[in-house]
Structures are given as C-alpha cells and as structure tokens.
C-alpha cells in the first residue's frame, strides 16, 4: 500500500468517524489543531484504522500521532 493510498483511506475514516471533510485532509495537517479531531475521536479513528489496515496501534502510541503524516508513518512501519 502506498502512502497516497493510506492517506486516502485515512481521509475516508476521518470523514466517517469525525465528520472531517475529506478534501481538507493532507499529510501535514495536525489532527487536533487543523482538523479539530479531539482526543476521544482520535480513539475512534485509531480503531477504524486498525480494522482497515490490519495493524495494532497501542494506547501509548496514540498520543504520538500528532499529524496525518505521523499516522501514515506508523501504519507503513506496522504493516
């Protein structure tokens, strides 16, 4: 899976789970500050990402995922 594909799937998840407009999602955006995804929605995003990408994202890791790129990097490494 390319980074572009991961980005596109993440945008879909963010839209479904947190109501974020998919067009707003780019790799440099911060979940909290730019996309207004609060810490509880982040948990839901992480759970959906685990299902979609077949990876495990432990609770301790979640707070390190500040930007969309952080999430992409984690998923690439975990796959």
């Amino acid at each position, binding site marked *: 899976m390319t980074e572009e594909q991961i980005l596109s799937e993440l945008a879909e998840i963010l839209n479904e789970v947190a109501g974020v407009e998919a067009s707003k999602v780019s790799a440099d955006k911060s979940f909290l500050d730019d996309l207004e995804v609060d*810490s509880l929605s982040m948990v*839901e995003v992480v*759970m959906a990402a685990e299902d979609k990408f077949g990876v495990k994202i432990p*609770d301790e890791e979640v*707070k390190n995922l500040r930007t969309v790129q952080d999430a992409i990097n984690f998923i690439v490494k975990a796959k």
Partner: protein
Amino acid sequence: MTQIKAPFRPNGTKVAGVGGYRPKRVVTNDEVAPLIDSSDQWIRERSGIIHRRFAGPDETVAEMAKLATLKALEFANIEPEKVDLLILATATNPAQLPNLAMEVTHKIGATHAGAYDLGAACSGFSYGVAAASEAILAGDAEVAVIVGSERMSDFVSQYDRGTAFLFGDGAGAFVITSDEEFKIAPPVWGADGSMAEAICMTKSWTDFQAETASEFPSLKMEGQRVFRWAITEMVQVAHAALAKAGIQVADLGAFVPHQANQRITDHIAKSLNLPEHVAIAKDGIQMGNTTAATIPLALETLMENNEVKSGDLALIMGFGAGLSYSGQVIAIP
C-alpha cells in the same frame, strides 16, 4: 444431627422504589472552564455535560445518601424502620473508617438494619443492586436499600484538564424487596486489574503523609485508554447481561448506563443497535459523572420525564475505576 434452620426464601426480588438527591449548587461549564483553559463549547463537545452539582458543607456523603434513601422509601411506601439492610456504594468517604452506611441507618431510624459500605467506584451501584437482591433471595433481609452517594468535588482537582469538568456530586437509591417473580436479573460482573492505573489517585494517603510539601491526592485518568475500553468491552457486557436475563435488545424499555460521558453512552447505544423505543439515559448532561450515584439518578430522571413506564425493563450497567464493571436487567417500578 441437628440441622440449621433454613430461612424462608422468596422466589424473586424487585426494585420497589427509586429516589435521588441533587445538591443545591449548580456549577456551569463557564465556572469550571477558565481554571482548565477550556470553554463551555469544548466541554459540551467532549462530554455532553452542560452543568453539574457541587455539594455544600452540609451535603455530606451520608446526608445526601439519607435524603436519597428516604425519597426511595417514600416511593416504595415502606417505613424506614422496616429496612434491614443498607448498602452504601461510595468512593468518597473522606475517612478510612467508620463506614458511612450506619450513619445513614441511624439518621433514618432503621435500627434493625445491617449496614456496610461497598467500594467499586462507578460499578458500585450495580454490584450493590446484586448484593441487596441476593441478600433478600437468601432470606437474610426483607427490605434492602442500595444507595450510591458521592462528593467527587472533594477529590477531583479543579486544575486537571482531563477530569475537572467531568465529575459532580449527588446520591441515588433503590429500595429492593421480595417479589413472586424475578424482577432483578442476575448480574454480569468483572474486573481488569491490569488497567488499575487508567483511573486512580495521584498518590496514596501514606505517600501524601510521607511527603513534606505535597499536593492533596486527586483523581487522575487516562481518558483515551478508558474511552476505548468502555466503548468496546462494555458492549459485550451489555449483551451478556441481556442474555443472563433471557431477553433481547428489543425487549428493553430503557438503557441506563453509568453516566461517565455522553459520548460513551452514544457509542455503546449505537453498537447495541438499540431500537427507537428504548429510552437512553442522559442525566449525566445535567449532573456530570457522580460515580456510584449516576445510575439511580439517571433512572429517576427517565421516570420523572415519563420516558419509561412501570414494568418496563431497564439495562443498568456501571463501569470505571478498577477497572471494573457490573450490569443487570431490572424491571422499573
């Protein structure tokens, strides 16, 4: 050989009365927000909470428990002297001992009652419903009271961004008596001690004593970790509780989860696919998280708003610090 006499054991038990006590002082988000660099909007989005109540100096854990208990006894039309067991579920007794349950029985004139406190935090009320029901089924008691009462404001730091806005004070009680039928289902309960640090105190009393200049212990919580546990594990608990009662989701009249956070309630309700006719308790929006008191207070509100009727089945379930959980189906009086 001499046999021990077997007590009379009824066929079943029921909730005969419900009563709550809400402290006088209403505390809005606007009052709480500045101390945690937050806003009314942020608090509402994060938790659904609009306001909560903080107990005043006269509204002690025992006093609030007494008032909730008297209200529930009035509902049940039972004299306080008839109570022979009172269980007080609380996490906020400000002293190691004595338990507060007997202060309540003393205040209400229940001179024949056994009394003890039950410590299971947010699961305490449901564990207590089971304990009270079982006492009656065993023939140990005829009129039992389970009352949850909390002064969370004594132990939550106003400056902790993760917890300051969530918790409130209050008390709620059920009166439980025998019945020809089974109107309180067996509980589903459990605990995960590996997650004890997800909701705990910043330090123990002995640590506090050992430190020369130290901040008072307060509640701390790993919000994201607890949220994830609640929205996944508690769905299974709900299904198990329904199965133990031998009913389906569609048979419910009400879903009354511990009012930890409206977003948790919404998530679990969605995962359970609750049909539209099932009333969903949301009293936490007005009261905050009152730990062991949330369930009876939330049920009382549904009843007062006529969102449920007598005889409807309600799934009550508590979950929280421990981490622990307990839930069961009851018939609404």
